[in-house]
């Protein structure tokens, strides 16, 4: 059996590795997607006061610290049985919308977009944000940096510092915002709406206007029929910060919604011998292996999943784009994974609109941003939608609020099974007997998981420096017969 190794995966958090095993004929026999798990977080937390968790957990991940901050804050609220006042919830959601705005912008222009803007066969040296800027224009590059700056500024104003917010505590926030800050945020949000619309237009022009890309998106290679989950508000519209988690089947039918404290009734975890990371699946359906279909408990939690699991978007412009999305792609649900990039841009527009909505809410400058907890702390669950999927924090404490147990299901973990399936399917489609495995082929395999934007390290870990993608082909004796390397 031949063995191909893609190690490490470029532009992917944590030190991931794809191993592709070929049979004697040179076709793909199996693929394994492995990630070394960071160890000992629970042990690290036990014995600390629960109110430290919003600060500690945002150190788990260098990519979405704001998401961990929010999930931890909500779990700590639940532990103390305290409901933050409306202004606190709105401020947290406003901060969170600013974070989404930055994160989704970055993904499109720096990570997902280059495959389309530069093309899947473009040299890796050009398939990055620098290449994108040179192709679409310096002015647009400036807008991307501006968009990120605005998102960071909103996080800093409400969260006390940029990137790693520190103001959420059980019962609300330690500070509010002034009228001046509110005005500034509103202006940034209005600019953001235009920027998001511009980004969607760019996607329409570059991607949807290119038949080869449309064929790639709607083709079978990047398609999987699975369940989808995503948080919705009381009207079943997408919400990033609060609500219930909606679960829909591969036909798009909602099979239920669960509140944060009900997650263990819905989600279970499967263990495989070849990886430390567990595979979450829908408990009510059961684990049937890495397979598509209604009988398989495999689910997906991504921007695409959130759109599929909801009845629409809560803001008008995003709703228009939502309708266009489904009418173009043939109705709900959309199973084509590459459409996730488009779904992410619809969420970008929603985030910008939500910033304006919240910044113009009369309550947003209210000084009533904290409720002092009075109940004895016990146990609590907090759920938010991280950009990369539903994020669940579950804490147990003693009567002093000191942690005795911690469980987290991070955004990306949800997608471990569907991602593994996507990689296998793409590898099977592109790596065959007689096919020369070149960089374009490798990139098409990577494109299978890039829509998920996996973040397995879920720490501040990045790949070391410039790590070229290396693919090693070994014969049945384990001897290296060919090495394909990116420089």
């Amino acid at each position, binding site marked *: 059996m031949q063995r191909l190794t893609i190690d490490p*995966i*470029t*532009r*992917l*958090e944590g030190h991931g590795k794809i191993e592709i095993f070929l049979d004697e004929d040179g076709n793909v026999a199996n693929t394994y997607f492995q990630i*070394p*798990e*960071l*160890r*000992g*977080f629970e*042990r*690290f937390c036990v014995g600390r006061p629960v109110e430290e968790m919003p600060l*500690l957990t945002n*150190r788990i991940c*260098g*990519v979405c*610290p704001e998401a961990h901050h929010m999930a931890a804050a909500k779990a700590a609220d639940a532990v103390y049985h305290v409901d933050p006042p409306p202004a606190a919830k709105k401020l947290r959601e406003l901060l969170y919308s600013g974070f989404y705005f930055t994160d989704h912008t*970055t*993904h499109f222009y*720096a*990570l997902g977009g280059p495959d389309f803007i530069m093309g899947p066969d473009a040299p890796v040296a050009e398939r*990055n*944000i*620098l290449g994108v*800027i*040179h192709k679409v224009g*310096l002015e647009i*590059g*400036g807008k991307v*940096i501006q968009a*990120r*700056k605005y998102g*960071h500024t909103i996080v800093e104003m409400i969260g006390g510092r940029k*990137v*790693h917010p520190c103001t959420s505590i059980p019962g609300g926030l330690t500070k509010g915002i002034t009228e001046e800050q509110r005005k500034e945020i509103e202006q940034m949000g209005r600019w953001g709406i235009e920027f998001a619309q511009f980004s969607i237009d760019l996607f329409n022009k570059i991607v949807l206007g290119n038949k080869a890309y449309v064929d790639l998106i709607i083709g079978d290679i990047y398609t999987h029929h699975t369940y989808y989950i995503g948080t919705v508000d009381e009207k079943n519209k997408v919400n990033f910060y609060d609500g219930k988690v909606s679960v829909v089947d591969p036909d798009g039918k909602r099979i239920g919604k669960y509140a944060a404290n009900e997650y263990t009734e819905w989600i279970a975890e499967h263990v495989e011998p070849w990886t430390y990371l567990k595979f979450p699946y829908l408990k009510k359906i059961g684990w049937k292996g890495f397979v598509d279909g209604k009988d398989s408990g495999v689910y997906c939690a991504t921007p695409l999943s959130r759109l599929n699991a909801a009845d629409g978007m809560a803001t008008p412009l995003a709703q228009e784009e939502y309708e266009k999305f489904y009418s173009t792609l043939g109705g709900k649900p959309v199973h084509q994974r590459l459409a996730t990039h488009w779904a992410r841009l619809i969420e970008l527009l929603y985030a910008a609109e939500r910033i304006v909505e919240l910044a113009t809410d009369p309550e947003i400058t209210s000084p009533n941003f904290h409720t002092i907890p009075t109940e004895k702390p016990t146990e609590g669950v907090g759920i938010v939608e991280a950009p990369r999927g539903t994020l669940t924090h579950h804490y147990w404490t003693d009567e002093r609020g000191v942690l005795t147990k911690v469980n987290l299901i991070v955004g990306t973990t949800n997608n471990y099974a569907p991602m593994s399936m996507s990689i296998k399917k793409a590898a099977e489609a592109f790596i065959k007997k007689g096919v020369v495995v070149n960089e374009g082929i490798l990139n098409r395999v990577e494109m299978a998981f890039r829509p998920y*934007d996996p*973040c397995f390290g879920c*720490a*501040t*870990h*990045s*790949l*070391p*420096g*410039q*790590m070229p993608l290396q693919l090693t082909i070994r014969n049945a004796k384990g001897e290296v017969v060919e090495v394909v390397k990116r420089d």
Partner: protein
Amino acid sequence: MKTLVIGLGNPILGDDGVGWKVVEEIQQRIDDPHSRSAWQIANHYSLSAISHAEQPSAIEFDCAAVGGITLMEYLIGYDRAIVIDAVITHQPIGTVSLFRLNDLPEHSTLHTSSPHDASLQTAIAAGQAMGAHLPDEVIIIGIEAKKIYDFSEELSFEVEAAVPRAVDEVLLLLEKETHYDLT
């Protein structure tokens, strides 16, 4: 000339947080009135302030758990950056190395690139293309790390022992009035 000294890493992930420890140690030494280095840096401040009155020299310190584009954004407005980070280059644990950003393909650090956006080199090139004022010179102080997958606030023994050496390297760079010639 404005210099940023920035420690990178995750402060709760064992050796990964060594960059933070080095920067904290430098700040402590500077605050210590008996430290020779503190005197030299203070002297450096005032000398530069006199000789380049219109553009006073300044050294700022920061710690961050970021990479790629976000790290580039941290560097905007500085003329020079000294980045302290954990590295895995298969040298003895605790080895302190010094290299320029452009040498990174051979001398990787754990945080100068972010697979969620771009490497620092690409991010700086993109930032410069868009007209941002970014350092002409980015110097990396890398400390060879061992335990980077276990949550802990403690450094490995060898890495802890390397902290004073890394601090000396940074202070040496700061004490030079001109750009440090690495060749």
